[in-house]
């Protein structure tokens, strides 16, 4: 059985959030489900729904956010691939057992948890495992 359930979201680093939201809604018609200022992560973001997954447009609000460096060096673009897992602790342990480096669990704004996985293990992809709060598992619309 697969360690991961589905693609949860793709995070796209942008310079100006409002412009990017306008572009993606105009170009593709994806509805915006949520906008937040996440001081703990040093970003402002907007979630756009596509099928059972989401696109996250985000812009760094602090110069030391790693995505600020990414934008400065490579330009805007896809930054994180987030995969939903049923049980974050189990999934993290399965990676650790194979010697793969995983960051500490971080709380999401709606009561879930996530971890980042070293791009060295994933062929250059900044991968994230996310466990949704149990009441919302499988439902991309967040009603917190």
């Amino acid at each position, binding site marked *: 059985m697969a*360690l*991961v359930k589905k693609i949860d979201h*793709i995070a796209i680093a942008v310079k100006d959030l409002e412009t990017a939201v306008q572009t993606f809604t105009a170009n593709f018609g994806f509805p915006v489900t949520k906008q937040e200022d996440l001081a703990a992560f040093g970003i402002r973001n907007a979630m756009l729904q596509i099928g059972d997954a989401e696109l996250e447009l985000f812009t760094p609000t602090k110069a030391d956010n790693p995505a600020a460096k990414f934008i400065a060096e490579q330009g805007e673009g*896809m930054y994180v691939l987030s995969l939903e897992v049923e049980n974050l602790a189990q999934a993290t342990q399965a990676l650790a057992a194979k010697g793969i480096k995983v960051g500490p669990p971080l709380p999401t704004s709606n009561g879930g948890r996530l971890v980042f996985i070293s*791009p060295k293990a994933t062929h*250059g992809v900044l991968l994230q495992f996310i466990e949704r709060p149990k009441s919302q598992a499988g439902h991309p619309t967040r009603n917190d």
Partner: protein
Amino acid sequence: MLKKIHHVGIVVRSLEESYAFYRDTLGLPVHKVATVEDQGVKAALLTIGNSEIELLEPINANGGIAKFLERRGEGLHHVCFETDNVSRELEGTVARGIPVIDKAPRKGLAGMICFLHPKANHGVLVEYAEPFPEEH
């Protein structure tokens, strides 16, 4: 209408080497492997939920995938949205003045496909795909 994420494309040096993580560690089944000569790429589609992860390995030094690998290294390359009608979707996109790479849909691994220009979408290379009828 764009229905869902059909797949996320990831450029790798070697499909075989990348299977160790994506197939064996994540446990995602490989359901299709094909070489697309004119794109200079060997690709594998791995199922994840009702989407896929597409691993892309260059087969020569000239294609876009080889150039991406040389310039950026391994990593996220494109996102593909599924549609019922790729011709109509592309016509609508062009009519809205959005820059595209493919002026007409062409046959790809995921079905009939086309690519939009990344400058249209904040650096994100977007693909549309209408899956082949037998793969719906």
